């Protein structure tokens, strides 16, 4: 009786292990590819990305997850990419922020805002909202209902919380980038 159960478990385990053996490398490769694609999108001038050790990010904002130093063909630094995940309305909003060597935001890309309200908070994932961040520097502020000037972005109408969360993430990323570039 127990032997039957044991045998079934063993076979099930082996089947799962076999499937894992086949799919794991594919999944890992996919994730690596998606990451490289994302990194290249936010800092197109870079030829390669050097991951930053976790220790160097100690003391940075809570939303900062990881970072990469971007180098060009000649191995010269062209900037830093920071991955952040601030808490939005319904969950974390994952993003990549590309920062050039002078601390200017090159491009930012929202990787996932799946937990935000569709039609409202989810609009932060639209290019129109993200495009606002290009060219801004540390300490960006938010305005509502009016066109942004200078170092400002306009919140999505009716989605202040999601917009503010993204802003938080970007500002923390810019601060982290500044510190990393100073360190080198």
């Amino acid at each position, binding site marked *: 009786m127990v032997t039957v159960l044991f045998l079934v478990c063993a076979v099930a*385990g082996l089947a799962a292990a076999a499937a894992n053996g086949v799919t794991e490398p594919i999944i890992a490769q996919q994730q690596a590819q998606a990451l490289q694609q994302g990194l290249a999108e936010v800092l197109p001038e870079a030829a390669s990305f050097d991951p930053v050790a976790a220790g160097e990010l100690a003391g940075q904002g809570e939303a900062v997850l990881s970072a990469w130093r971007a180098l060009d063909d000649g191995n010269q630094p062209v900037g830093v990419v920071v991955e952040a995940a601030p808490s939005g309305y319904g969950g974390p909003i994952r993003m990549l922020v590309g920062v050039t060597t002078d601390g200017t935001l090159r491009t930012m890309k929202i990787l996932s805002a799946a937990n935000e309200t569709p039609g409202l908070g989810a609009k932060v994932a639209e290019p129109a909202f993200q495009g606002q961040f290009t060219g801004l520097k540390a300490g960006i502020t938010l305005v509502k209902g009016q066109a942004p000037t200078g170092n400002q972005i306009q919140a999505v109408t009716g989605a202040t919380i999601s917009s*503010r969360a993204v802003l938080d993430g970007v500002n923390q990323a810019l601060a982290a980038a500044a510190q990393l570039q100073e360190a080198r």
Partner: protein
Amino acid sequence: MELFAILIGGILINNYIFARFLGLCPFFGVSNKLETVYGMGAAVVFVTTLASAITWPVQHYLLAPQKLEYLQTIVFILVIAALVQLVEMVIQKVSPSLHAALGIYLPLLTTNCAVLGVALLNVTEGYGFVESVVNGFAGGAGWFLATWLFAGVRERIDGPHIPAAMQGLPIAFIAAGLLALAFMGFQGLFRGLLF
């Protein structure tokens, strides 16, 4: 403070029934009478808390170190099935009257998505042991609260003023939808406090 956030989050903000859609079959199944809700609810809270407490060390001391995370589904559901079986045997020995009251609900807990759901969510949210147990308790308590509220509503719904086609399950779903709408008011609860 964070434990409190997890507690309120699990019970109100991300209520397992009204926001996460977990544990729906028994939700509709036991909510036609208020008495059955208490029995099932207590059983659910007990098992979700215990399941969280047991699956956490299994994940972190057995599966993860051996790189066996892909066995998570199989192992977790077996743990839960065994746990439910054990709980039923213990209750039968310790308190036959309690067993008579809860007896039929316990085996159903193995297929209650809320139990496996909470165990899986503990892993995806990256909770530590205490946080997982609190989250487990919160999930179960939220389930209990939702089902209890719903049973109260259902007791008053059915009657001749409901169109024939709507009677029974259809109107129950609409009522559940209205309750879900009400619970949406809890969204952004902490954001509101912190912002």
